[in-house]
Every structure is written in C-alpha cells, then in structure tokens.
C-alpha cells in the first residue's frame, strides 16, 4: 500500500488542484493523507514523520516555492526522511525547476499534467517497501 501526503504549504488559498490529485491517487488505490490549506514547513514534515508516508506531494501556486521548498527539504533531512519521494506541483516557472530538483525534489509536475503520469511516476519511483 502506497501512502501519500498531499500538502499545501504557504498562503495561497486554492486547493482544487491538490484535491484533484488526492482523488486521482485514491482512485489508483493509494492512501492519501490530506492536511488542508496554509501548512507551515514544520507542520508538513511533522505529518510526514507521523504518517510514515512513502510520498510527499507538494502543491504551491503562490510563487513562494523558492523559500518554502528548501526549508521543507532541510527539515526532511534533519528528520532523516531521506527515503520519502518528494514531488512538486502547482505553478513553478521553468527557470526554477532545476533549483527545486537541487533541493532534493524528485520531479516537478506543471499545470495540465495528466494525473496518470503522476501515478505512474509514483509507482515507478517509490523507494521503500517496508
């Protein structure tokens, strides 16, 4: 059973995309923990830790990813959550993608991504089976 945390860090108030993803992952047979809007990096990483998820899927539309994502990845490393696959979606300009990957994010999915691609990516790249 693949467990995924779908999280919305920061201040933007739109979670339609996150909910669409959550539902698609559920329909693909995954267990999706959804934590709602306005999450701090600390809250998100604490939820990853307690829920012991295989995948963290972040959705950021506010443009705050250059500060939020490095902070989240730093906290993930602090808690030794290195085997969690981290995906980023929302509105991430092409020029920022490489910097996001550098922080430890595995893949950035832009607007209009087919949910099937996300599901396939997760199934292929989940790192732990324990």
């Amino acid at each position, binding site marked *: 059973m693949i467990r995924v945390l779908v999280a919305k860090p920061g201040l933007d108030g739109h979670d339609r995309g996150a909910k669409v993803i959550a539902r698609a992952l559920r329909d693909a047979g995954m267990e999706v*923990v959804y934590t*709602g809007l306005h999450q701090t990096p600390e809250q998100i990483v604490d939820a990853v830790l307690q829920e012991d998820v295989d995948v963290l899927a972040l959705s950021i539309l506010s443009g705050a990813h250059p500060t939020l994502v490095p902070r989240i990845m730093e906290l993930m490393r602090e808690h030794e959550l290195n085997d969690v696959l981290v995906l980023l979606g929302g509105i991430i300009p092409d020029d920022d993608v490489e910097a996001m990957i550098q922080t430890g994010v595995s893949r950035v999915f832009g607007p209009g991504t087919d949910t099937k691609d996300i599901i396939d990516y997760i199934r292929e790249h989940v790192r732990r089976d324990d």
Partner: protein
Amino acid sequence: MISARELVPGIVAGHKRAIARGLTWIERDHDRGRALVHLLFPRAGGAHIVGVTGAPGVGKSTLVNRLTLTLRSQGRRVGILAVDPSSPFSGGAILGDRIRMQESVMDDGVFMRSLATRGHLGGLSRATFGAVTLLAAAGFDVILIETVGAGQSEVEVMQLAHTTLVVLAPGLGDEIQAIKAGILEIGDAFVVNKADREGADQTARAIRGMLSLSRRDVAWVPPVVKTVAEQGEGIEELVDAVNRHRQYLDESGQWAERRGALALHLIELAMGDWTHRAIAQAQRNVDWSAVMEDVLSGGADVEELARQLLLQALKGRNHEP
C-alpha cells in the same frame, strides 16, 4: 533490516520515527508487526482508551482536536488514531482528519496517525487494535480513537475503548428513536456537538429520555454534554466526564474486566485472520473455480470444506497471507 525487538526501545522512549515505523509494520500485517504488538502488549495496560464515534459530519475530528488541547493543558500525553474508510473499488482512501487537528498535532506530547479501514468492517481498521497497544506502550496517557463516520452498527470501538463517546448533532429529533439500538447503546457519554444550533436541547432531552428507558449499567448514568467544538465550548465538561468515567471503571473493577474482554476480542480477531489466510492460501493452491462450482452445484458440504481449508492453513503454519 531492523527487528521488532530492536524497535522496542525507541517506541518505549516515545521517539516519533520509531512509533511511526512500528505503526506501519502493524498496518502491513507482516511478521514484524505481529511480533511488535506481542512484545509491547505487557507495557500497554495504563493508557485510557477513549473512542469517539458518531455519524459523518457531526464534528468528531474537531472535537478530538479540542479534547487533545484540553488534555494537554492537564499535562497528559495524547495519542490519536483517526480511521477513515477505504474505497471498496480501488482500495485507496482519502484520510482527511488531520485538517481539523492542526492546532493540536504539532505538540511533542501528541502523536496522530490516520488509518484506512482496508476492508475491515465495524468502524475501525484491523490495525487499530495493534496500533493502540503500540501508542499505549509509547507512554501516551490517553488514546483517542476516531471511528469512521458511523451508522447504527459500527460498534466495534466499544470492544477496544474503555470509554466510548457517541457524538450527535442537533436536529435528529425523531431519528433518535430509529437509532436507539446499536450505536446509541454503546455510549459511556453522549456529546451533542454544534450545540449553538437550534434543537440542541431537544436532542439532549431525547437522549436522556432514551437512557432512562434502557441502560447497560445501572451504576453509571452516561452524561449528556453539549459542546460547540469549533469554539471550544463544553470541552472541559466533556473531559471531566471522561475522567470521571475512568475513575468509575477503576473503582467498580470494570477497568480490569474490560481488559479481559479486549483479550477475548483480540483472540477472535486473530482467528478471523487465520480464516482469511486459509482462503487466500486455498485460492493460490487449488483450482478455486472448481471448488466454487462444487459448492454451487451442491456437491460439496460447505461446513466440511471450511473445516478442511482451516486445517490446511493451520498445518502449513504459514503466517504470510
């Protein structure tokens, strides 16, 4: 690969990573998960296990959040298990109880885990029983179990909890008559949440009326507490009722009795697991469609067939399903 025995010290010390990993093992129902529960069971006797049940939308998650904050202010460590249904079609689930628990779960004295039912009926997941044992052994003083949105027969939580809170919202009125059997029989306390809405007093009265007609235990009168969980109103009174119930269980000797009842239920669940394994094993090893045909045509004695399948599974002593 670490063993169950190696994980125990971290759990007993309350380390979040160890607790989280142990819960995952229990959920995946492999040998290490079972070994872990077995090792931790002797350490799990002290926690007060409180079930929170009720229909979808009555405010169970918000109430659990508020209960946690108040229990924390009394210095008690709180474990939370929140159960949501798995899809019968995909097997997937959306676990959304954290949304309403954000205020309480960031605290180091709180550990919260979302569980999906994974096909288990009764309002809990199969893993909830082991998960409670683990959290109790990890030193949480109170363990709150939020069931799936319950109808009339999701009453399994009473097998696990010392104290069961049945949560309702105003406006049920006559419906109380319809649901008086089942879920309304298992409450050690009743919560009329969203009590700022019209009809709260009638609902509280209807519950009291029902309780005066039928009670399991004449020495404990289940209190009916009105709350507005969103605003935190009535929560102290509810925590007080929970604490009084624990004291009552201690003094009446029922604390120990309930532990005995839990042991019995655990044995029943484990027997059920053997049944599932027997069927899974048979489906792998024999021509299952021929067996089904045999049953449907009246050729096979179903009772005898069941006995044979169980015997084969037990002979194999194969733990893995």
